[in-house]
C-alpha cells in the first residue's frame, strides 16, 4: 500500500468516526467535534512547526492560545468610553512607563562599562521605575475597574469586526514568543521547555487577575460573531421557509447552519495555513530548518545562524497557536481565563502532534482531528464500559458509585496511554515525515 493510499484511508477513517457520531448521537455533536478538530489541527500545525521542523520543545501552548483569546476581546468588544474617561489613558501611560523603565535598564546595561556602577544603576532604574509605574498604574486600575463593575469594569476593545482579531491574536502570541525566545533559545532544550511552561502559567495568571484588561475571572461574554445568530435565522422568513421546504425543524437547522458557517471559516484558514506550511517545508527555508534540526553543528558550520532561525520558527509556530486561540474564543463567544488548563491546551496538542506524525503537516492535522475525537468520545465510552463492567454489582454499592464517578477521569489516562504506545511502537507517528 502506497503512503498516499494509507494517508487517505487514515483521513477517511477519522471522517467515518465523526460521521458515525453524527448518525448515532446528533449532528450537533458531530459538527462540534469537527469545529474543535479544525482548531486543534491548526494548533497542532503550529506546534509541529516548532517541534517537527526545528526540534524546539514548547510546552507553553496554553499561554499562546490564551493570548489569542485576549486578542479576540481586545479587538472585537466595543470600547467602554466611561472607563477610558475614568483612567484609561493614565493606565496606558503607566504601562508605557513600566516598559520605558525596562528599556532604560537594558540600554544602561549595554552602554555602561562593566562593574559595580553598572549593576547599581540598572537596579536603581528598575526599582525606581517599578514604584513609579505602580504609583501611576494602580490608581488608574482602580478607577477603571470601578466603572460599572457588574457589566464592564474594563477598558473594552476596539469594536472592530472579530475576524480582524484572528491575526491580532497571532501577533500578540508572536510578541510573547519573541520575548521568551530571546531569553531561552540557544540554551539547552529543557530550559526552553521550563521557560515556556512558566510563561504560560504567568499569562493565565495575568488574564485571571488584571480585571481592567478583560474582566479577569468575571469573564467577557457575548463576543460579536462573524456568522449569524441562531435566533435571527429562526426569525428570518426566508430561512424558515426553506427549512420547511426541506422538511427540517428550523430550530435544530439554525444551530447546525451556524456550526457549518464556522466550520467553513475555520476550514478556509486551515487550508491556507496548510498550503503555506507545505510550501515553506519544501522551500530552501524548510530544508535548512530540517538540516538545523538534524545536525546543529553542521548547519552552523555551513554558515546558518541557528539561534536566529530557531527564534524565527518559534515565533511563527506560536503565532499560529495564537491565531487558533483567537478563533476558538470567537467560536465560544466568550473569554473564560479560568478554563485554560495546561493538560487540555498544552499537553493534548502535543499528543496530537506526536500521534499524527511530527514533521509532517498532514500528520499534525490528522492527529488534531483524531485526538480531539478521542478526547470527546472517551468520556461517554468510558462510562458505558464501566457501567457494563459494574452491571453485575449491587446498585448503590460504594465501589460501583465510585467507579462510575471516576469514569470522567479516564480521558487523561487514555491520552497518556495513547501517547506512550505511539512513542514506543510507532515513534514517527501515523503519517511519518517523508
Amino acid at each position, binding site marked *: 500500500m502506497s503512503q498516499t493510499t494509507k494517508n487517505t484511508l487514515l483521513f477517511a477513517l477519522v471522517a467515518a468516526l465523526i460521521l458515525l457520531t453524527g448518525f448515532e448521537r446528533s449532528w450537533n455533536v458531530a459538527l462540534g467535534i469537527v469545529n474543535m478538530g479544525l482548531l486543534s489541527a491548526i494548533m497542532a500545525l503550529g506546534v509541529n512547526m516548532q517541534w517537527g521542523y526545528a*526540534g524546539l*520543545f514548547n*510546552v507553553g501552548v496554553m499561554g499562546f492560545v490564551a493570548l489569542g483569546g485576549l486578542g479576540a476581546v481586545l479587538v472585537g468588544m466595543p470600547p467602554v468610553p466611561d472607563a477610558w474617561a475614568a483612567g484609561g489613558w493614565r493606565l496606558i501611560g503607566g504601562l508605557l512607563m513600566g516598559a520605558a523603565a525596562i528599556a532604560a535598564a537594558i540600554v544602561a546595561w549595554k552602554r555602561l562599562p562593566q562593574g559595580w556602577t553598572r549593576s547599581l544603576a540598572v537596579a536603581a532604574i528598575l526599582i525606581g521605575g*517599578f514604584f513609579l509605574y505602580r504609583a501611576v498604574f494602580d490608581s488608574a486600575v482602580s478607577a477603571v475597574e470601578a466603572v460599572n463593575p457588574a457589566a464592564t469594569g474594563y477598558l473594552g476593545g476596539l469594536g472592530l469586526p472579530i475576524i480582524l482579531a484572528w491575526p491580532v491574536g497571532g501577533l500578540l502570541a508572536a510578541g510573547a514568543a519573541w520575548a521568551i525566545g530571546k*531569553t*531561552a533559545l540557544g*540554551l*539547552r*532544550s*529543557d*530550559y526552553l*521547555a*521550563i*521557560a515556556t*511552561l*512558566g*510563561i504560560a*502559567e*504567568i499569562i493565565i*495568571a*495575568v488574564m*485571571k*487577575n488584571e480585571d481592567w484588561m478583560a474582566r479577569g475571572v468575571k469573564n467577557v461574554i457575548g463576543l460579536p460573531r462573524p456568522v449569524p445568530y441562531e435566533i435571527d435565522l429562526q426569525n428570518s422568513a426566508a430561512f424558515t421557509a426553506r427549512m420547511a421546504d426541506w422538511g427540517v425543524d428550523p430550530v435544530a437547522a439554525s444551530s447546525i447552519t451556524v456550526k457549518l458557517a464556522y466550520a467553513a471559516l475555520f476550514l478556509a484558514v486551515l487550508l491556507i495555513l496548510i498550503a503555506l506550511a507545505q510550501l515553506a517545508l519544501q522551500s530552501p527555508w524548510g530544508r535548512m530548518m530540517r538540516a538545523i534540526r538534524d545536525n546543529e553543528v553542521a548547519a552552523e558550520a555551513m554558515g546558518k545562524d541557528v539561534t536566529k532561525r530557531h527564534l524565527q520558527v518559534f515565533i511563527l509556530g506560536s503565532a499560529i497557536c495564537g491565531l487558533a486561540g483567537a478563533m476558538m474564543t470567537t467560536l465560544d463567544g466568550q473569554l473564560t481565563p479560568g478554563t485554560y488548563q*495546561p*493538560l487540555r491546551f498544552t*499537553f493534548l496538542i*502535543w*499528543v496530537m502532534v*506526536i500521534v499524527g506524525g511530527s514533521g509532517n503537516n498532514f500528520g499534525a492535522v490528522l492527529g488534531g482531528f483524531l485526538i480531539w475525537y478521542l478526547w470527546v468520545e472517551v468520556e461517554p465510552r468510558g462510562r458505558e464500559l464501566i457501567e457494563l463492567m459494574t452491571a453485575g454489582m449491587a446498585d448503590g454499592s460504594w465501589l460501583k458509585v465510585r467507579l462510575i*464517578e*471516576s469514569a470522567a*477521569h*479516564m*480521558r*487523561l*489516562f*487514555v*491520552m*497518556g*496511554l495513547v*501517547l*506512550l504506545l505511539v*512513542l*514506543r511502537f510507532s*515513534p514517527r507517528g501515523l503519517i511519518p515525515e517523508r
Partner: protein
Amino acid sequence: MDFLNAFVALANFVIIPAASYGSQLAIGALGVTLIYGILRFSNFAHGDTMAFGAMATILVTWGLQGMGVSLGPVPTALLALPAGIAITALLLLFTDWAVYSFYREQKAKPVVLVIVSMGVMFMMNGLVRFIIGPDDQNFADGERFIINARNFREMTGLSEGLAFRTSQGITILTAIIVVILLFWFLNRTRTGKSMRAYSDNEDLALLSGINPERVVQITWVIVAALATIAGVLYGLDKSFKPFTYFQLLLPIFASAIVGGLGSPLGAIVGGYLIAFSEVMVTYAWKKVITYTVPPEMAPDGLVQLLSTDYKFAVSFVILVIVLLFRPTGIFAGKSV
C-alpha cells in the same frame, strides 16, 4: 519603633512559612535533580509522582485512622509515610521497567525522554484522579500548633502573635533529616558513590564494574521517597489537591535549575531561594514597616510588591535572570 514586634511579625508571616515552603521545594527539587543527574532528562511527571505518593500515604493514613491508630500530637500521616514510599517506589520501578528502560537501551535523545515523561505524567494524573478524585482531601490530624498566636502573646506580652504550626515544624525537621541522610548516602556509602560516579561519567562507571541497572533502580527508589515526602509535607501544610501538585512543577524546576541541574546542594539552595523570594515579594510589608519607622512615616498602602496570585511569576523571573546571566545555575550543574 518596636523592633521586637517587627521581628515577630516578620517571623510569623515570612520566615516560618517560607522556611517550610522552601523545605518542600528543596525536597521536590532534589528528586528532579537526581533524575537529571543519573537518568539525564527533566522529569515532567515529578509533580504527579508527588501527588501519587501523597495519595498513597493518605489512603494508608485513613486506614490507620479507621483502625484507631494515632501518634498523639503528631499527624498519623508520618506513620503511614513508609508505606506510601513503598507503594510509590513500586509504581516508579514499574514505570521504569515498562516505559523508560526501552529508551535507555536505545540511547534516545534526552528530549524524547522528556516527551515520554509527559505521557507518564498524563497517566499518573489520571490514575490519581481516578483513585482519589480531583477534590481537596484533608488528612492532617493531631495537634494543630506547636506555639499558637494567643499563647505566645500571653507568654511574652508582645502585641504581635507568633503561630508555629505542627506541620511547619515537622516539615523543617524532616527536611533537615532527609538532607543529612541523602548526603550521607551519596558521599559515604558504596552505592551512593557508585551513583555519583555514574552521574559524572557513565562510560567510566561502566568500566569500573558499576551495574547501571542497579544504579537506576536505586535512583528511582530514592526519588520515590523524596517525592512522597515532599508531597505529604506539602499536603499536610497546605492541603492535598491533585492539580496543585502539577502547578508545583514550575517552582520545583526553577529551584533545581537555579541551583544547577544535577547538583543536590544546588537544589536545596534553589528551593529556599525561590521560596523566600516568593513569600517576600508577595507579602504585604505594611505591618513590619509600621513597627520599624517613626509613626509619622508609617505607610498608608499595603506595601505589597505583587499580589499573591503572581507568586509563579516570582519563580519565573528568578529563573529567567539565572538563565540570562548564569545558565548552568549557582552551583554549576550539568549542561548536556
